[in-house]
Every structure is written in structure tokens, then in C-alpha cells.
């Protein structure tokens, strides 16, 4: 019943979105005519570093070059990123997603380590997966909690990890990949503390070490960086979620643009360009998701 509502809500939202923003839609032809593609990015891990580079920045720059247009990076945050793409604000209520209001459209594509989530897929077109991810539970090094022992399968590992939380407070960030709603952590008796000082996921570990919560959720890309950055200060207890996929998102009315991007992604995976970019920005992630990268090798 819940899923039906989501679908209906998604469709109505999409229709409304299409109706309202049809005049703003920018598919491949319009972008080529305009001569510029606007990439909406969020300063997040090594996807968009904020220093003008990052995995997604280089991906989109390569894509712009492929379709023969100039490239422009438009910064956003996790709260505004969809509004900046669609010109509509997203409202999720009771499992329904609606688009409201009228806002300026600031870009043509979201590419920023953007997790593929069902509610997002209701209002956006996703490309093929760009990178896998997973949400982990992290504790300070001095915590009495010990990392779980590797279980028989992932579900067992997730169950053991969630069990370890107990009454301890957990730092989360809504509307992002660390949104507890996504992983069934809400309303199950957990002490969830929402981090809202900024929309930057890079600040989750420092906030935990600053004792704003006893534990924090952290995605794999951030964990790879933080394990070196905070070596000996934090420890990963275990997984909270199953495997997720990060991908590039487009407006629903830009299928040609999405298809062209998928073709581009396929080409750079075949040529080895993609692997070099991954090793550059996320060394070690191939060890974590060997099955994903085994396909591309």
C-alpha cells in the first residue's frame, strides 16, 4: 500500500513537474544548441571536492567534451539539489513525494555521488550506476563497542551491527544517503541525532569525535578517506545498509541526454578511463566492491 502511494505520488509529481517545467526542460538537443552543460554538484568526499575537481567533475567534463559543449559547475547542497535541477521543491510526506513551488532551474544534470533511492527515481531519470556504496556504522576508537565479526552473509552483518547500537545515540543526516528513513532506522527506538549544521557529509566523523553523538552513519566513499584521515581515532563497527548505487540524475524529460551519458559511461569503462578516475579519487574501493569492478575490468 505504501509503495502504491509512492508510485502514484511520484507519477502525479512527475506530471506536475513536466507540466510546469516543460518550458525549462533541457534535453541533449537544447544543450547542444545552447553550447553549455551545467553540472549541479555538492561538495562531498572526492566526488566534488570544492577545489574544482573530483570524480564526478571529471566525468562530466569528459561528457561535455563528448557532446561538444562547454562545461559549467553549479554548486548546490543536499537540500536544494533537486530543486536546482527541476525548479520545484520536493516534499516527502507519508511516503509520498510531491513537487511544489517554482524556482529557478540552475542546472541540467546532478552528478555528485548521488545515491539511487526509490523516491528519487520517481522524479528523476538515473544513469547506469557510476559507483557502488554502502552505509557503515562508525564509533570512536575508545568506544567499548567492538567491530562485528564477519558473519555468514551481509544480512547477518547488518543485523549484528544494528544490534550493537543499543541505546547509543547515532548521528544521521536527513535527505542524504545517511537519511535514517532510507534504512528503517526511524521509529525503532534508536536515539537518532540529526546533524544539521551543514549539508556536508565530510563533517559527520568530526562531529562524532566532538561527542555530538556516540556513533555515526558513514558511507563507504567517506569511510575510505576518513580511515586514513582519522587513523587510530575511529573504528568501523559494521554495515547498516545493503549495497547502494550512486549514479548521475537527469530530469525526466531529458532521456536523450541520459542515454548519451550511458553510452559515454560504457565507453570510458571499456577504455580504462573510468578505472583510472576511480583509482585516483577512491583508491581501495575496488577492494571493497570487488564484484562491481570485476564486471568492468
Amino acid at each position, binding site marked *: 500500500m505504501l509503495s502504491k502511494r509512492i508510485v502514484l505520488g511520484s507519477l502525479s509529481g512527475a506530471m506536475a513537474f513536466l507540466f510546469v517545467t516543460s518550458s525549462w526542460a533541457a534535453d541533449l538537443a537544447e544543450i547542444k544548441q545552447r553550447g553549455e552543460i551545467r553540472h549541479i554538484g555538492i561538495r562531498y568526499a572526492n566526488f566534488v571536492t570544492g577545489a574544482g575537481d573530483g570524480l564526478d567533475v571529471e566525468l562530466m567534463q569528459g561528457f561535455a567534451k563528448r557532446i561538444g559543449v562547454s562545461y559549467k559547475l553549479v554548486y548546490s547542497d543536499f537540500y536544494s539539489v533537486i530543486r536546482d535541477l527541476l525548479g520545484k521543491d520536493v516534499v516527502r510526506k507519508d511516503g509520498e513525494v510531491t513537487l511544489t513551488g517554482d524556482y529557478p532551474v540552475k542546472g541540467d544534470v546532478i552528478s555528485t555521488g548521488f545515491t539511487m533511492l526509490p523516491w528519487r527515481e520517481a522524479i528523476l531519470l538515473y544513469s547506469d550506476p557510476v559507483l557502488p556504496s554502502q552505509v557503515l556504522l562508525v564509533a570512536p576508537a575508545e568506544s567499548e563497542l567492538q567491530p562485528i565479526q564477519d558473519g555468514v552473509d551481509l544480512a547477518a552483518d547488518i543485523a549484528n551491527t544494528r544490534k550493537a547500537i543499543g541505546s547509543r545515540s547515532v548521528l544521521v543526516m536527513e535527505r542524504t544517503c545517511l537519511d535514517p528513513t532510507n534504512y528503517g532506522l526511524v521509529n525503532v527506538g534508536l536515539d537518532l541525532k540529526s546533524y544539521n549544521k551543514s549539508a556536508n557529509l565530510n563533517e559527520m566523523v568530526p562531529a562524532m569525535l566532538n561527542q555530538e553523538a556516540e556513533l555515526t552513519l558513514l558511507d563507504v566513499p567517506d569511510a575510505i578517506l576518513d*580511515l*586514513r584521515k582519522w*587513523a587510530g581515532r575511529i573504528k*568501523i563497527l*559494521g554495515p547498516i545498509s545493503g549495497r547502494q548505487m550512486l549514479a548521475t540524475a537527469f530530469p525526466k524529460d531529458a532521456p536523450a541526454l541520459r542515454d548519451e551519458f550511458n553510452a559515454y559511461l560504457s565507453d570510458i569503462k571499456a577504455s580504462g578511463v573510468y578505472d583510472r578516475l576511480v583509482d585516483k579519487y577512491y*583508491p581501495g574501493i*575496488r577492494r571493497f566492491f570487488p564484484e562491481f569492478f570485476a564486471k568492468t575490468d
Partner: protein
Amino acid sequence: MQSSLIRFSRSLAPHWLSIAAGAFLLSMFFLIGNLYSSQMELRQNADARLVSIGEARAAEISDFLSARQQAAVRLAGSEDIANYFSNLDLGMSVRYGLFANLAAIERRFQATLDEEKYQGQLAYLQLAFFDRNGIAQVDVGASSAPTLSPTGNPAEPSIQIDEKRRLIVASAPVLQKGTMRGAVETVSSLNLLASLVSTNDLGQPNEFLLGDDGDVLLPVERERSPIVAHGRALAALQSGRIQALSNLEAPELKGYLALRSPIGGTRLSVLRLASEDELYGNTLSPVSVFYIGLFAIILFGLAIGFERMRQNAARLQIKFIESNRHRAELAEHNLALSQEIERREAIETDLQRQSEALDKTNAELRIAAAAFNAQEGMIVTDTKGVILSANRAFVSLTGYTMEELVGQTARLFRAHRRDAEFYQSMWNSVKSTGGWQGDMSLRTKSGEHCARWLTISAVKNEAGEVTNYIGSYYDISKLKHAEEKIRELAFFDQLTGLPNRVLLIDRVRQALNSNTRNKSFGALLFIDLDNFKTLNDSLGHDVGDQLLKKVAQRISHCVRADDTVARFGGDEFVVLLANLGTQEAKAAALQAEAIGEKILSAFVETFQLDPYEYPCTPSVGVTLFSPEDRNVDELLKRADLAMYDAKTAGRNGLRFFDPVMQTMISARASLEADLREDLKKERLLLHYQPQVDHEGRLLGAEALARWPHAERGLVFPSEFIPVAESAGLILPLGASMLKIACRRLAHWSADPATEHLTVAINVSALQMRQKNFVEQVRAIIEQTGADPHRLKIELTESTLVSNVDDVITKMDKLKAIGIGFSLDDFGTGYSSLSYLKRLPLDQLKIDRSFVKDILVDPNDAAIAQMIIALSKSLGLSVIAEGVETDEQYAFLASQGQLNYQGYLFGRPLPPEDFERFARAFSPRRSSRQERLFVDRDVRMKRL
């Protein structure tokens, strides 16, 4: 004491060579000693160098191994490995945490593997990180690298050589908080060190890396080396000492030296082999030095032996030379005798030849003496111009005695009127052609100058060599005097002393040429005295002449030194302002006007004419001439017109040639166009004026050009010839006239009444200058069939102004086919004896200007007389033209038998009329008839 020393030294003298050889032997021993010690020093240096190289090679290998060990230590202590153990201690699993640390270690190892190189090759084959249990957590390296097995848990960094797999394995423990947690191993190929092991020039290895048990590790290609079989013995050699390998049972190593250098910190050592040649090169061994010493002793013995042989040979040679000398003296005596016989025979022959020559010379001398005593002065000089002899006439002429002349050169009586270049040219001519002639002024002892025609002839001997020069001085003083007088009369007005019209025109022409070069303006002022005719008629010519003289003086005072004031004729004066020094017409006009006004002012004061006081005014016409103006007549006409304009305007004034007068210039242009057209259509004619001899017999005619103009009627040469000259038509006009004259001559030859007549035709200077003029005339004669003996070409003096030699050549050629030449206008131009004598002329013509006033102007009469006298002396006939009156005829006839031309004997007639006239003169008629005809004609002309 001294005498005993001398005796001692004399006793040693015969043995000097033996003593020198002994001294040489001693010095050789000294040198060989030095050689031995220096060669030993060189060998010691070579040994030290080999030891140094061996130690350096061992140090390089030691450094390489040390670097590998340090790399293992550095990796073992890296931050990534420390992080790994920290997270491991925190209990993180590999799946959910340690994977990131292992990835970082792997990345670091991979970077080290990729980046570290030794001599361009990868320094490592494999890098591995083992945990405490010896399990490889990270293993990076080429898949072809040998699988590593942990070397245990080393407490210290170490280096191991895996000789079988040819690997260098460096390991270092991973220590954390003092506890050994694992190990890092690096693996490198032993072959990396191959480049450190050198080879000799033939590519054979001469350095080897030995293991502690004598295994030869390097070079890589070592299987065939005899060193492999003897490795153990070589490894046992004492280190740091060069040892010969002669005691090894290896013939290949015979003669080789070996040095073993241990590698610090290992049990390896470097073995370096070198042959004696390689090591010591060209240094001598002690045995060689011994042989050199022996050679010196043998050399000493040989020297003693050779000395004895030399002394014997010297004694034999002295005997041989003495024998040769006697034989040469005998041969010399024989030669002298035969030469004396030849000399005496030659003297006899020469005496005979000289006797014959003397007879011949005496005969020639008799002839020469007769010629030498002629009336003309003669001198004989040697080849340098030194006078050897002079005849009596020359002694008399110069006033010097024979003694004063002999030994001098011609410089003694040179007049110094010629420059050095002239004399140089003269002597060049003498040397090249053997002679020279020309007029020369000779200075006598009293200082007088007398004109002589000098002929220099070279005298040559039988061999053609010049031996003497003979100079003959012919007296031409009378001719010179006449020439100068003619010149004076020709160019200056006798009354005023001013340049006359001829000279003026010449100077105007020069001024035009000069201004063309300088691009500046000049001016002509034409001055006519107002009412002069009235004065002449009323007070007589004497008073008129007085006025003209004074006017000449006053005008002369008004102009600059470079300007010319000329009497143009009657009461007409012309002032030539040759160069006004400006290129602007306006400035030039102002200057000319200023001088004109000055001249007008000079007339303000009345003239004192004895016994009258006469006020006289002039009218002045001015014309400027620009650098582009070329025509003198045109300029004079302009000035004349301007003068008339001044007269018309009320006299006593000055007028410039103005645009109104330009219309007349335009008319002239029109005339030029008509002339060009009519010439093309052969409309110009010849009229023929009779020429008669002193008895009135018709000799022929002068052909005179006439132009029957369609609108203006008959135009005379005085009008159209200048037009033809300025329009460049003078050559076609001349050719056309010559052709017409020749046609007429041919026509006359068919008629007995005219067959004997000649035609004289004027040829201009321009025509004569044509390169092909002779060919042109020949062609016309051939085409028309005219008899060249009946054709006479009249030349003007202007023809002779330049390039006389060319004119003479052409005249000679034409004269050779029978054409005669008459010099027209003689006395009006540059009459000069120098060319007159050289020209092949037949006739001189007295110009009509002289004949016209011959009775009233003593100058003209004198000129005419001079011309007649000159003609006689040169053997030329004379014709007077412009004879119009009986009085003129009578005067001329009184001077000699001349020919005549003029109205008195007939006007120029059209050809048909002239032929009728000639028939009346026909020689078939009686002389009485002829005379009557002449008389009748004369009367007719008078009417």
C-alpha cells in the same frame, strides 16, 4: 808547462772519435739508469690505479645493496602500515575497515615499484608486506617475479643474495611500539649490477662479481669464461693486492694479473683481471732496460771500428782528387787553344763585312749631305732627342751657333705654348709610326717666335732599330699670319672692337649648352639705336661711326665681365647675358630687366660727337632663354621682335618678348609640319645658279633648295633650313636634295649642251657626321647614273669643327670616285691652316658677305685677298659668290683668275630654265656668242 799541455792535446787529437764514443757510452749508462727508475715508478702508478678502480667498483655495488636495504626499511616504517596495525588493534575486520589500509599500502608499494629505477631499469621485481604469521597481506610486483617466501622475522634489516634465482632480497622488520609486527621484503634482479662489471676493448669481461664460495655471479654471460672453473681459487686471493695468475693451471689466464676487492657488509667481492699490456701499456720491463744498455756498448764498439775504416778511406780519397786535378788542367789548356783560333777567324770575317758597309755608307752620306743642306732648317738628333748636327739654314734661323746647338735638345727653342701632353703625344706618334708633322712655334736665340711646320722622321739601321731622328722646320710664318688675321677679321667688328655676329652666335650656342647643363636661365638683349639712319644721312658716316664706338663703350660698361656685347650689324647691338644664375624665370627676368634699364640709363647723357652733342636713345628687346631652348636664330628673332615692340611703343624703352609674339612661334610650328609633309611627298625642288670661269664660260651650277609652299608661295632656304634643323629633318632633306641633283646631272649628260656641266650641292655638317654618308652618296650615284666627276660637294667650316680626321677619311673615299669638294663660307668660321692643309679640297669659296661690301669695307676686301692668296699657295681654285655688280667683278678679277657665281651671271633658275640658259652657253656656239650672251644677261640682271 804550457808546451807539455799542447803536446798532450796533440797526442789526443788522432783519437778524438774514440774519446767521443767513450763519452757517449758514459752518457748512455746515465740515461738508462734514469729510464729504469722512471719505468718502475710508472708501473707502481698503474698498480695503484688498478687497486683504486677495484675499490671504486666494490663501493658502487655496496652502495646499490645498501640502497635496497634502506628502501625496505623505509617501506616497513611507512604510515600506511602503521595505520593498518592501529585499525587492526581496534578490532576492525578486513571486510569493513582494514581494506582501506591495505589498499593504501598496496598503492604505496606500487608507486615505489613504478618509480624507483636504477640506470633506467626498474629497481625492484617485487615488494611484499608480511604479517607476523608470515602471511603476505600485500604483494606487489610483476606476475613473472618469483614467488616470495618470508625470510622469517628478521630483527635487523638484511641483504641476501639468492644465487640460484639470481635475486637480491632486502628485508626489514615492521616495528610498532617496539614490537616486531611483520616484515617488508624487496626483491631486485642480480642482473641489475651487470652494467657495473666492465669489459675490455674486445668485449671480453675483465671484472667479475664473486660469491663467498667462489661462484661467479656476474657478468651474466659467464659460462665460457675460464674464471668460472677457478672461482674458488680466485675468491681465496688476498684482497687489495695485484697478483699474477701464472701459477693457475689455466693457459688462457697466462700473463694476466688479478685483483680481488671485497664488497663491504657482504661476503661478495669484485675480481678484476688485466693483462700486463693493459695495465702497464708501453712501459719497459727491467729486462728491456738491460738490453738497451747492451745495445749502447755494441754501438760503442762499432764506432771504434768505423773510425779506423774512415781514416783509411780518407787517405785513398786524397790520392784520387790529386789525380783528377792534373787531368782537368790538361783539358782546360786544350779548350783555351781552340777558342783563340775561333776568335781570330771571327775578327777576320767582321773586318771584311765592315769594309763593305763602309763603302755603302759613304755613298748614302753623300746623298744625305746634299739633302741636309737644303733651304729648310734641319737638325739630326740621337734617339733621346739630343742634337747631333744642324744645317746652315737652321743655324741661321735660330741664331744659335753649331757648337751651342750640338748636345742640346729641342727644348732649347721650344716656345712653351704647348703643354707637356702635346709633346708626349707627339713623341708617342714618332715612336709608333716613325714620324710626326704639325705646326710648331720655334723660339730663336733672340727670343722671337716664328711659325714652322715641323716634320720629324725616324732613321733606322739594317736591323730596323731607330738610330736617329731628323727634324725639318718649314717656314709657315706667312701662312700663320694670314690665318690669324682672317680669324680676327672674322670674329670682331673692326669699328667697335666688339665681337661680331658670328662670334655672338657662337657664344649664344655655348651659353645654351652650358645652361642646359646648369639648368639656369640666360637672356638676350637686342639693342637698336633710335633714328640712327637720320644721323647717318644728315651728318655722315664718320659721325655715325663715332656714335657707334661710344655706344659700344657705354653698353660694355653696363654689363658684367662674363657677358658679351656684340655689334650685330649697322646700329644693332646684342647683349648676351649668358647665365643669370637662377632656375626661376621670374628672377631671371628681373635681372635682365635691371641690366636693360642700366643700358637705357647709360643713354641719358648726350654723346659728344666731334663737333656735335648728340642725344641718342635705344630701343631694347629682351628675351629670356631657358635650359630647354636650343635654337639660336629663334632666340635672336624673339629679341628682335621684342625690340620692334619697344620701338612701336615709342622708342627709348625696353620690352620683353611677350605672348603676342608667341603666335609667330606657332606659325613657325605650322611651317615645320608643312615642311615635314612636303618633304615626304618630295615637293621640294632645286634651282640652279650658274657658276662661270674668269672668262665668263659656264662651268656648272650650284643647286639651291627651294620650297614651293602651297599657301605662302616659294620659301627660301634661309627660312626653311633652320626649321628643318630644329625639326630634325636636315638629314632627309639633304639626302633628298642630293638625289635630285644627281638625277639632274644624269639628265644633263644626255645633252651635249649640258654634259660638261658640274653641279655643286651643299652638304651639312650633320650629313657629313653620318657613319654611312659615303655609302649613301655612292648608292645615290649608282641609282641615278650621275657622273661623280661632275658632282661637287660644298662643305661649310662648321663641318670641320669636330672630328676632322673622320671628315678627311670620308672626303678621301668620295674623292677616290671622282667627287670634288669646295669649302663654302671660308673665312666666316674657324678658318685654320692646320686642317686646310690636310683637307683634299679643290676649291675655296669667298662668302657672299665679303663680296657684298668688298668695295666699301676694307676688312672684307682684305679677307677676300687673303683667301685668294691662300688658295694660290695651296693650289686650290677660288670661286666668289654673291657677285652682283661689275665693280665687284672688276675688283675680284684684278686679284687673279677666279670663278664666279652671283646675280651678275645668273639668278637661281628652275631646271628647265637653267637648261635653256645652258644651251645658250653651249660650247658649240662661238666664244663671241657666249660673250655677248653674258653681256646681255648682265644687262638683263641690272635691269
